């Protein structure tokens, strides 16, 4: 199939009605005629040029800010014995990237969520407001290839899609979870207060950062977190003194791995590795690794001093793009510090310990079991133009529980309309079966100003 056919929604497989079929047949005949007849092709060219003549001149300026609002209405079906709920939300999200002059730049990213949950049959409601100051920093370009940043920065490492073992600053960064989509989890998180510098050269770069401990938080739990609606919550974002060195170098065209060295006060240094490779015109591969001496996740959750050993974490996968606007990503995730099958089953019998373990894994955005699988299918301009369909599947390979997430999103000029469905299946103490929510449906509207 040609690129033209790939781009043409009319060529995509669907179940056409009689009218649609007639339209497609007519279009097909018109195309055939155009291909067979040079005169017809010439007439088409002239039509195209006339259309271009009539196209008005428009000027679009680059903006230094982006602002959107999002509204959500949902329905959540919960486990037996728990009544269904109706969540709703209004969010305001502002990001600014403003250049003061050739050397100085300011970045600000802030989000405000107003959440409300109504219990079934008018049995009451709960609401909360959460403001998340994601980023606020100044950047000084000392030279074109040497930069210095200071402030709250969302430092994100990692090339994998859904599990980022080398993303060392993700722990404790989630303040308001509005979606379980990986992109949303990365987007709506607290940056850490830090001083960062980066030096670049042809095909490589070296960056160093230092993030001091601020407040009285700890890395191991959320006790120090400041849950006030408008709290800056540095206790969560800066629970300990941390530093990081990251080095990238191009080995040959198309291959530039990244090596990271991370250290947190009181812990052994952690090593991170990132690499990706283009295997063919349609297939790209990625691998992300981290390794360090530490206690296991279970020992840390129990807050007991256990023997430290070297644990590896890995996230490795591939994305293949089919010639019908469909991209498929498959990712295998390994967490040696998490529980294996026997340990996970045993923990499931220990109510309080199980809760602490899950809480720690969630806080650190770490997988609670050793082997997991992630799959994402994204179909752009699916069935009709401006309609994107996404199907996400998370599968715990240890307890065989599953999470499905399906989204249909239609793009208007300034707004997005989306419908999301989420379903979780598994035994009562499994990764995805333990949640109170069984199935949920959300309708969202997002408007860009």
């Amino acid at each position, binding site marked *: 199939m*040609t*690129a*033209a*056919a*790939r*781009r*043409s929604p*009319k060529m995509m497989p669907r179940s056409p009605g009689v009218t649609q079929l007639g339209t497609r047949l007519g279009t097909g005949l*018109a195309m055939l005629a155009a291909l067979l007849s040079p005169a017809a092709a010439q007439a*088409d*060219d*002239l*039509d*195209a*040029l006339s*259309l*271009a003549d009539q196209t008005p001149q428009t000027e*679009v300026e*680059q*903006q230094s800010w*982006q602002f*959107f609002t999002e509204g959500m209405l949902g329905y959540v079906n919960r486990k037996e014995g728990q009544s269904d709920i109706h969540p709703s939300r209004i969010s305001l999200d502002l*990001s600014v*990237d403003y*250049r003061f002059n050739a050397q100085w730049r300011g970045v600000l990213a802030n989000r405000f969520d107003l959440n409300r949950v109504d219990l079934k049959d008018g049995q009451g409601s709960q609401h909360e407001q959460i403001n998340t100051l994601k980023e606020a920093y100044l*950047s000084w370009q000392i030279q*074109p*290839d040497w930069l210095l940043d200071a402030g709250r920065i969302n430092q994100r490492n990692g*090339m994998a899609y859904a599990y980022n073992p080398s993303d060392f600053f993700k722990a404790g960064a989630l303040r308001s979870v509005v979606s379980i989509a990986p*992109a949303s989890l*990365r987007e709506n998180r607290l940056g850490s207060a830090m001083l960062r510098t*980066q030096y*670049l*050269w*042809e*095909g*490589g*770069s070296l*960056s160093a950062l230092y993030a001091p401990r601020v407040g009285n938080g700890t890395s191991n739990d959320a006790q120090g977190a400041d849950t006030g609606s408008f709290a800056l919550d540095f206790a969560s974002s800066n629970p300990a003194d941390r530093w990081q060195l990251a080095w*990238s170098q*191009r080995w040959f*065209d*198309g291959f*530039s791995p*990244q090596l990271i060295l991370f250290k947190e006060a009181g812990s052994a240094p952690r090593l991170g590795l990132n690499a*990706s490779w*283009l295997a*063919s*015109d*349609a297939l*790209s591969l*990625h691998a992300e690794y981290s390794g360090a001496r530490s206690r296991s996740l279970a020992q840390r959750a129990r807050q007991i001093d256990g023997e430290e050993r070297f644990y590896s974490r890995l996230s490795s996968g591939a994305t293949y*793009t089919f*010639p019908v*606007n469909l991209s498929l990503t498959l990712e295998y995730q390994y967490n040696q510090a998490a529980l294996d099958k026997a340990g996970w089953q045993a923990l499931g019998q220990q109510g309080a310990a199980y809760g602490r373990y899950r809480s720690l894994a969630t806080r650190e955005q770490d997988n609670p079991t050793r082997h997991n699988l992630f799959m994402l299918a994204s179909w*752009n*301009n699916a069935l009709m133009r401006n309609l994107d369909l996404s199907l996400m599947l998370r599968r715990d390979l240890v307890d065989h529980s599953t999470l499905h997430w399906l989204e249909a999103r239609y*793009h208007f000029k*300034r707004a*997005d309309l989306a419908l999301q469905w989420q379903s979780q299946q598994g035994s009562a103490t499994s990764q995805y079966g333990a949640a109170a929510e069984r199935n949920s449906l959300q309708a969202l509207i997002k408007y860009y100003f």
Partner: protein
Amino acid sequence: MTTRSFTMKRQALALLLAAVMQNSLAAPATTAQDLLAASDAIRNPDRSFGLNNTLIEYRDGKQIDSSTLAIYARADSKTGQFRNLIRFVSPQRDAGKLLLKNGNDLWFFDPSSKASVRISPQQRLLGQAANGDVMTVNLALDYHASLLAEEEVQDGERQKRASYLLNLKAKHGEVTYERIEYWIDRSNSRPIKAKFYSSSDRLLKTAYYRQFKSQLGVERPTETVIIDGLDPKWITVMRTSDLAYRDVPESWLQRDYLPRFNPEQAK
């Protein structure tokens, strides 16, 4: 005049004629590549530059989409081919997103999630950027040109032009189009029209270069009308503006720089 000197003059004339004829016979092969390079020089400046690219898409005469890209280009010191940093300016939902294109090495960066994701050429083809960034390609570096014909062709302003029709064959597999038919104005080497073909020699798109205006001292096309090869009612009008020399340092053309790229830096 002696017989000897007459003979020598005849021999010299014959040699001169032979040399001229040899040159004229060899000309199409040599000249085709030179013509293509001259045409590239009209489309692209000779050093790092930036421009704005607005794409307006029509289907059956009705506008269905529009987007604006800010494109920054710097030539590779080894290959001479342009690498691109592309910033999405509109629509608003995509504003600020970046695409780094270095041959087939492609990275997409979303500033809100800070995620740099490698994408395959197939993924890139699905977006409008495929139309935008291909405009800064130096064809002479990626294609072997040969002269197919000298003919009169209708240009984008509906005028008849005396042209060279070149056949461009891809030198390697890392190009979007396997073959291109390329019409160049005989009088000034301006690109007039191009037909882009797939590896199975199917017509993918037809492009008309038009609205020539003086930019950076050269009359360059500021509008390209692209007609889909399969569905001729699918038309994209691509307009370039604000072409200017930009300092795009080599060190910026890498994944690690994407989170920092602010186009105002490229002055």
